[in-house]
């Protein structure tokens, strides 16, 4: 599903984001990327959804070489990769429903399909009763579930979550994790960036550890070491 070969990202003038990363993620896998702050986890995530281009190496997603993806092709990639962030990135002036519908509107989805899809994804994240709330009226966990619902509207093959539980307490974090597992069980490949020890240990899935922009360990059914 995802394949990186000798990928480096050097930010100008010479800050190392990631260095010589090679990895392969199979369809349907649930992979955690862990490591301390500033070790290149977010950079790796950004390379996956083409917010950054690699300085060296090649990146393939679903057989598509996105190493030098053109600007006008990026939207197509983004419709195949759901993204979730620590800060939710919801529009405060739109309701839960509108925030999710927005993702479909801006990619030219017909109104009828929007009316079908939005309740569907809201149901997956268990927020069908809060459609008319504004983000300000939601708990952190609920806001993140809205963001996850939004990332699902295009039925992505891959979900990239960069510290989705970073702003949440243990209970809410656990809920989000369960949700990600559920999405993974539906067949979506999940890449979870985190530095939350508990979460990783609970998952018992593949763990890739970064340090100084390099992969220092990659183990199936791993635990958070460091």
């Amino acid at each position, binding site marked *: 599903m995802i394949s990186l070969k000798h990928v480096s990202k050097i930010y100008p003038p010479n800050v190392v984001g990631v260095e010589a990363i090679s990895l392969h993620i199979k369809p349907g896998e649930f992979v955690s990327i862990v490591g301390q702050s500033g070790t290149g986890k977010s950079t790796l995530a950004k390379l996956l*959804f083409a917010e950054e281009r690699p300085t060296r190496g090649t990146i393939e997603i679903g057989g598509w070489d996105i190493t030098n993806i053109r*600007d*006008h092709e*990026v*939207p*197509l*990639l*983004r*419709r195949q990769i759901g*993204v979730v962030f620590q800060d939710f*990135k*919801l*529009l405060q002036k739109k309701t839960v429903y509108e925030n999710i519908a*927005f*993702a479909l*509107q*801006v*990619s*030219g*989805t*017909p*109104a009828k399909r929007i009316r079908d899809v939005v309740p569907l994804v809201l149901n997956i994240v268990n927020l069908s009763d809060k459609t008319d709330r504004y983000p300000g009226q939601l708990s952190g966990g609920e806001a993140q579930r809205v963001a996850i619902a*939004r*990332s699902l*509207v*295009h039925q992505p093959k891959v979900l990239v979550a960069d510290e989705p539980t970073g702003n949440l307490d243990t209970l809410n974090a656990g809920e989000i994790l369960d949700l990600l597992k559920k999405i993974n069980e539906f067949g979506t490949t999940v890449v979870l960036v985190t530095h939350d020890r508990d979460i990783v240990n609970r998952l018992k899935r593949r763990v890739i550890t970064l340090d100084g922009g390099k992969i220092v360990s990659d183990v199936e059914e791993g635990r958070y070491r460091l």
Partner: protein
Amino acid sequence: MFLISSYRVGKFALQNFWRNFWLSVITITMLMLTLLTVNIIVVLNYVTDRAIQAVEDRVEVSVYFYATSPQTAVDNAVAYLRSISQVRNVQVITADEALTQFKDRHAGDEVITKSLEEIGNNPFGPSLVVKAKQVSDFDLILEALENPQFRDQIREKDFSNYQDIVARIKDTTQRIRMFGLALSGVFLFIAILIVFNTVRMSLFIHREEIGIMKLVGASNGFVRSPFLLEMILLSLVALVATLAIVYPSLAALEPKFGYYFGGETIGLIDYFEKNGWEIFGLQFVGLAALTLISTGLAMRKYLKV
């Protein structure tokens, strides 16, 4: 797909317009000022054209023949003058007509009537009124009258030289026109800067929304179109507002100009109504092109894709 997108893009554009209300107002005002100066130039061009035409209409040479001149000399002169392409019109006033006109003019004056009776026959000769097409053709016509075929039969040539007046009108209007062009150039430049800044602010205000749009896979066109459309909208509003100022002004100016042109209408409103689509259509196309270019520049600089 295209229709859905157009509708949504339109909606976003309208939202932008209202959310940055004051920014929109300032932009529209500047665009309006630019359009107004352009329209002042258009009016000026038209009025001076009419002024020069009015003067040229009056440019004429009166040619008086002797009462004793043979009719053939007069006919020759008429035929010759009419063959000159610069001559617009030759009006012939026969000796009898001249006498009648004279009598009419002095109908109440006993002395003159008496002395005419004493003379017995018609003391007037025939005369011609020659009109030129342009003031500059004036010299050529005077020269033509030196033709030996009839030169000696001409008693007097009477003309007023309007060439200086026309030259002065042309000179003055040329200067006003240059000033107007320079002014609209300056306004245009300011307008471009303001549009650029409006788009920059707009992008800044919507940076979060734009960022999210991109993350969820909005096409670049979809991200850009609302801003382009918003600027077209502003151009359109500026044009309509300009029209709302220009038409009443024309209506107020028309009689004033008429006064200078001896009471007759100069057809200013007529001119704008007949050519309105062209005049304002061109202005809109030009304005829209300029705002789009400066929007494009702002987006290229401030909208990272």
